[in-house]
């Protein structure tokens, strides 16, 4: 646990390419201890690439990334980071129970992959937090989309992280499950967890967000209080799909700043 205000994620001048196409063109982003930061932007704006560069999944061609004050390539304390990748399913090619999947999230705290009593207790707590304790022994194949997302979040919470990084945790989740997830996140934030999350829209998480960072074409275009949705965009369930004919023809409207 660090003092409030200490940088937990620090990105300076981050550039990244996928193939020859530049996806991040000099991103500066600092997430301080206790903050909840939303990364917003249209499809292809680079928001997923930005968080995946933080965890080392995407190679960076320039710039510096620090996690908890340590340069990322020397950072080893992965138990402090909980990651929810962008997925629609928690299932693999072989059946696995909810507990088995969530237990993988505890490996960062386990030595030599041995789970002790305290580790099993942490896995159970993570399942209770997302309201999936009664499904612990069920196969993940039997779950709905929202329940898959709750399992993925429980897996990230199993290591009792200080920092949660979530990539579109609300994708494909119905509103009722979104409320459950928002409640989970509220409890985590209240206990001092720092959160960086990629969102397509603010939705039920809006009251939790301290700061919004909007990306466009790999550059930060807004860093400050979350933009207020107005008009039709503010309606619950509005999914911000705009049938633009050619996105070069007019400025990209994320529906968040317009």
């Amino acid at each position: 646990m660090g003092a409030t205000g200490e940088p937990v994620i620090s990105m300076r001048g981050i550039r990244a390419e996928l193939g020859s196409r530049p996806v991040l063109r000099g991103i500066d982003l600092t997430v301080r201890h206790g903050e909840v930061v939303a990364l917003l932007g249209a499809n292809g704006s680079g928001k997923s690439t930005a968080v995946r560069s933080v965890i080392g999944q995407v190679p960076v061609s320039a710039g510096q990334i620090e996690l908890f004050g340590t340069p990322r390539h020397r950072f080893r304390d992965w138990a402090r980071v909980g990651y929810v990748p962008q997925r629609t399913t928690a299932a693999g090619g072989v059946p696995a129970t909810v507990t088995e999947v969530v237990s993988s999230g505890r490996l960062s705290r386990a030595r030599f992959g041995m789970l002790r009593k305290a580790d099993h207790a942490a896995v159970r707590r993570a399942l209770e937090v997302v309201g999936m304790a009664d499904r612990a022994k069920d196969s993940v194949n039997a779950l709905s989309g929202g329940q898959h997302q709750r399992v993925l979040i429980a897996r990230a919470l199993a290591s009792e992280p200080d920092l949660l990084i979530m990539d579109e945790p609300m994708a494909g989740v119905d509103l009722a499950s979104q409320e459950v997830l928002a409640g989970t996140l509220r409890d985590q934030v209240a206990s001092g967890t720092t959160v960086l999350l990629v969102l397509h829209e603010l939705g039920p998480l809006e009251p939790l967000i301290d700061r919004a960072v909007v990306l466009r074409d790999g550059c930060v275009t807004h860093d400050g209080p979350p933009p207020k949705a107005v008009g039709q965009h503010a309606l619950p369930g509005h999914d911000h799909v705009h049938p633009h004919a050619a996105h070069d023809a007019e400025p990209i409207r994320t529906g968040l700043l317009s």
Partner: protein
Amino acid sequence: MDFLDYAFMQRALLAAVLVGITAPAIGIYLVQRRQALMGDGIGHVAMTGVGLGFLLSWSPVWMATIVSILGAVLMELIRWFGRTRGDIALAMLFYGGMAGGVMFINLAPTGSNANLTSYLFGSLSTVSESDVTAICVLAAFVVLVTLGLRRQLFAVSQDEEFARVTGLPVRALNLLTAITAAVTVTVAMRVVGLLLVSALMVVPVAAAQQLTRSFAATFAVAVAIGVAVTLGGTITSYYQDVPPGATIVLLTIGAFVVLTALAAPLARRRARALATAHPAGDPAECAIPATRAAGDEVGV
């Protein structure tokens, strides 16, 4: 049980049991990461090893082990660095491996396609004392890896990206999986043959998951099926004059068909049990609730 009196049958049964354990044990991780046919690819590459063994007058088993490990590592490297056409590179590796095997064995003074056939389809009755030693050592390695590192291998095979963020050495574990699969292929080579080995890695796992809900149970049932069919196939081939490799593979597919047929009523019973446990969760008939819940709000 008179077959137990013969030394060649004792060796054959020991080799068969070890293959029955190891092939599904590593195969489950390949199926989990949706690389079910990787074993087949390694089997093709191992043929070059067998051919080289004959050409250089080396043990074909050990030569095949070395070459298939190199091939498996190469496949893993293609997966890392290969950009768009990884499948083409893999195809070249597979067929290059097969062609290399045929070429080398025909160049060898003592080799012919007849020798190759015993490796392609297995030749359980000719398993020698030194083959058994090699199979035991290699099988011990496979069991050690697949059981000892089961949590790590599970995490990496389930979600590679997430595993990286838990600090697991993902690349090392991927390489270890590839090497273990290669070792298993050479263990199984004398029993079911290089062309059929992948069946024993994949089909017992596919059969087991018709019945199971957890990874641990799938692992146990797959290994049990593997041991049952390899023993059954070997004993059948002793009494009836049939090739053991083909018998084992057909028995495995038979087990899959039977378990799939059993699975449907089992799934129905589970669904009923679930419905009684959570009556509200799954009502038998549709009813329109009087009040609207948050979940009823559908975006337009």
